[in-house]
């Protein structure tokens, strides 16, 4: 063969190499994704007491990933069904899945569904639904500014920017109260230009776990409708936050109930444990059925050049479960168990900190809702916890309660205690 490659596999010394200069000379290494990179770092750590509280993926009390029983049962049914094949599903996804997903978030008997005013497309989980929605709005909506809360999920601004929207913020989290800065939120939304898009976390705000009360949702709704703003809901935790599918859909249904328009991105990653299958849906609630039909046709034009059509497996599992009374009921039971375990972790952590006399008011741990707790710890305290206690979390102080167990709560409490005392 021509010339040995040297140890780096550097082709410069190989006579058959084309040009010596790579087309990629100017490329820099991108940093690891700040959230998913936590797991990368965790995996590298050899410590036996390491704890991964980074990504929001549910873990059992034994610290293991969980595949729901109903999911396994659905997969058995699918694999035994000889009439199933793997040909391309429609660009907008499985029809049955879309109907059932819309029904799940909007409620049985929602007039929006009855009046055929909802355009739904199966997309790749929450991220994919948000991205398709953003691209649709950047092509077909007059306003290209979206307001996102501070803080929000790290991936939100990137999704919207690449989707063709520009991003502005509204106040949300109040570090002084570890709660909602309601007045600040309303002021900032009031100052938004008419028609601007507003991203709202339907429930279990990520990363803070701080949600508006029902009264506050009503105030937000009135303001948004009065200012003619366009709500875009991110619903990633329906049923997972409180344990009740209906309760967790309250905010969305409140808005849809007034007859106005909105976008909704749904994810089945957490509530059905289908993370890696990438199942979700984008619904656009329109004023009329004719508009919804045209909107759906244009969603297809966004999707086709992105990935042609969505993956069949996860959506088939969801459709199987949602359309079968027994599976559906069993799902709600498993869902409540997951939500309850997380709530129990909240109480255990709170009690453990109180028992240690850790300085500060830690009641936000039990007031916040959903998978995450915004601890209020700063970057240095977080680094300290990782270095000294092998606890992995995002640098904003967000911990995934789903990654905790009764056995590991004491270790976490020790770490927080030490971090607060050392660097408080």
């Amino acid at each position, binding site marked *: 063969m021509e010339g040995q490659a040297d140890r780096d*596999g550097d082709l*410069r010394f190989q006579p*058959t190499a*084309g*040009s010596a200069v*790579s*087309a*990629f000379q100017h*490329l820099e*290494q*991108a*940093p690891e*994704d700040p959230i*998913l990179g936590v797991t990368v770092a965790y995996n590298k750590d050899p410590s036996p007491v390491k704890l991964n509280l980074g990504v929001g993926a549910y873990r059992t009390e034994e610290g293991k990933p969980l*595949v729901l029983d109903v999911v*396994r049962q659905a*997969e*058995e049914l699918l*694999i035994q069904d000889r009439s199933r*094949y*793997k*040909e*391309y599903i*429609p*660009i907008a996804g499985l029809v049955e899945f879309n109907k059932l997903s819309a029904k799940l978030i909007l409620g049985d008997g929602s007039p929006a569904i009855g009046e055929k005013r909802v355009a739904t497309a199966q997309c*790749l989980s929450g*991220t*994919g639904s948000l*991205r398709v929605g953003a691209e649709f709005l950047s092509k*077909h909506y*007059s306003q290209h500014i979206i307001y996102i809360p501070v803080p929000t999920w790290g*991936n939100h601004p990137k999704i919207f920017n690449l989707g063709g929207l520009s991003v502005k913020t509204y106040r949300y989290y109040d570090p002084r109260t570890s709660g909602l800065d309601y*007045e600040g939120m309303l002021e900032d939304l*009031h100052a938004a230009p008419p028609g601007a898009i507003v991203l709202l976390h339907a429930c279990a705000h990520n990363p803070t776990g701080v949600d508006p009360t029902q009264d506050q949702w009503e*105030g937000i709704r*009135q303001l948004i*409708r009065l200012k*003619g703003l366009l709500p875009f809901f991110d619903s990633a935790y329906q049923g997972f936050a409180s344990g009740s599918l209906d309760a967790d859909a309250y905010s969305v249904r409140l808005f849809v109930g007034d007859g106005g*328009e909105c976008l909704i991105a749904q994810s089945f990653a957490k509530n059905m444990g289908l993370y*890696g*299958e*990438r199942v979700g849906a984008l619904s656009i609630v*329109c*004023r*009329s059925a004719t*508009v919804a039909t*045209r*909107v759906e046709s244009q969603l*297809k*034009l*966004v999707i086709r*050049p*992105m*990935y*042609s*059509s969505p*993956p*069949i*497996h*996860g959506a088939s599992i969801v459709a199987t479960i949602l359309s079968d009374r027994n599976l559906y009921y069993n799902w709600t039971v498993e869902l409540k168990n997951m939500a309850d375990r997380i709530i129990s972790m909240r109480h255990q952590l709170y009690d453990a900190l109180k028992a240690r006399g850790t300085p500060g008011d830690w009641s936000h741990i039990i007031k916040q809702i959903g998978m995450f707790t915004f601890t209020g710890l700063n970057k240095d305290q977080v680094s300290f916890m990782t270095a000294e206690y092998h606890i992995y979390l995002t640098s904003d102080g967000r911990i995934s309660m789903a990654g905790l167990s009764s056995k590991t709560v004491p270790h976490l409490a020790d770490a927080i205690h030490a971090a607060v005392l050392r660097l408080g």
Partner: protein
Amino acid sequence: MAVIDNSQLSLCQKKFDGLRVGYAFAKRKSSSSLKVKSVSRINMALATDVSRFEGVTMAPPDPILGVSEAFKADTNDLKLNLGVGAYRTEDLQPYVLNVVKKAENMMLEKGENKEYLPIEGLAAFNKATVELLLGADNDATKQGRVATVQGLSGTGSLRLAAAFIQRYFPGVQVLISSPTWGNHKNIFNDAGVPWSEYRYYDPKTVGLDFEGMIADIKAAPSGSFVLLHGCAHNPTGIDPTPEQWEKIADVIQEKDLTAFFDVAYQGFASGSLDEDASSVRLFVARGMEVFVAQSYSKNLGLYAERIGAINVVCSSSDAAIRVKSQLKRLARPMYSNPPVHGAQIVANVVGNPTLFDEWKSEMELMSGRIKGVRQRLYDNLSAKDKTGKDWSFVLRQIGMFSFTGLNKAQSENMSNKWHIYMTKDGRISLAGLSLSKCEYLADAIVDSYYNVS
């Protein structure tokens, strides 16, 4: 301009009583034009039922996928769907490969979890896919010079590459063949990548316009990308010969262009995985940097699972690491991480020697059936066409599709008169054709070609 009266103001005030936030227009009684304007616009929004999406127009049906929709709507018994490239058996039934069924059963028994894959996809899949493409013993792989990211089948992999080109080679063109798969242009348009065409199909010979192709590639600005179909060109079925591939590589090297392969039919075209990858391997063996988008839709029949990969063969492992990191940065805001199911199927089939061999047999069967159908169609056309026209291009073309040479009006006649559904560019999918229907199809083609202009 509307005038606000006090009653409207107090109404607004009431709505916000519970909010303890002052609103300028509720407090001030002067109707400054700014306040009046904003409130009247608000009142309008509330009063009318106009959708903010009222101006959204109805999109036309997808030219390829829309064919199946039209076919479904047709109630005629003789109807034939030669639109989408999805393989059908002789009974015109969809086909799930045996190895796929076995792999899925294995996966269910193993009880794999459903955790998020890394952004770049399933490691076992990525390893398998690059080995399939470049060969197990390939230097580029051994030297760590290939950046591989699992993508959403061919389309998703092309889109990731397009987004990468837009970001790191802004303004640089991609040259695409004339004609090419209909969705290529949409992908580059939506990604914001400019494109231009190089001559490819010669309607006079129903063959390759090689001189035109070479001339157009030579004329491209330095640094441009050239999109090449690795094998079984879609829609024409016309591939360069090995000698022609060498010349194409020569030109691309001379002119400092970058080859970008779309490999959607590896193993499916000739029946041999190695033979169908020979064009890509030729370029890589020369040490060229190339992009390769792969799809497992056809060769493993995994259409709806959306499984493929984007591979970037770089001149150093350092470049490959950096390229991969930037591809991940583009995937994260698009869908975060790719779907696990299809990737597991591929990894299980390729990783299991028995299943892998069985897969090769099934691929030979599929490509064999298509070759058989080509032969029967050719025989029928030759018999029915009394003018002595040479239909042998049907035999020379390769892969799932055949470019019949029919124009738009003639293709429409195929649907309207004969209930045969195909794309308007004259492309038919042989995968949707059975031996028993070849005669009917031949009648339709002869009628459309000679009686419609």
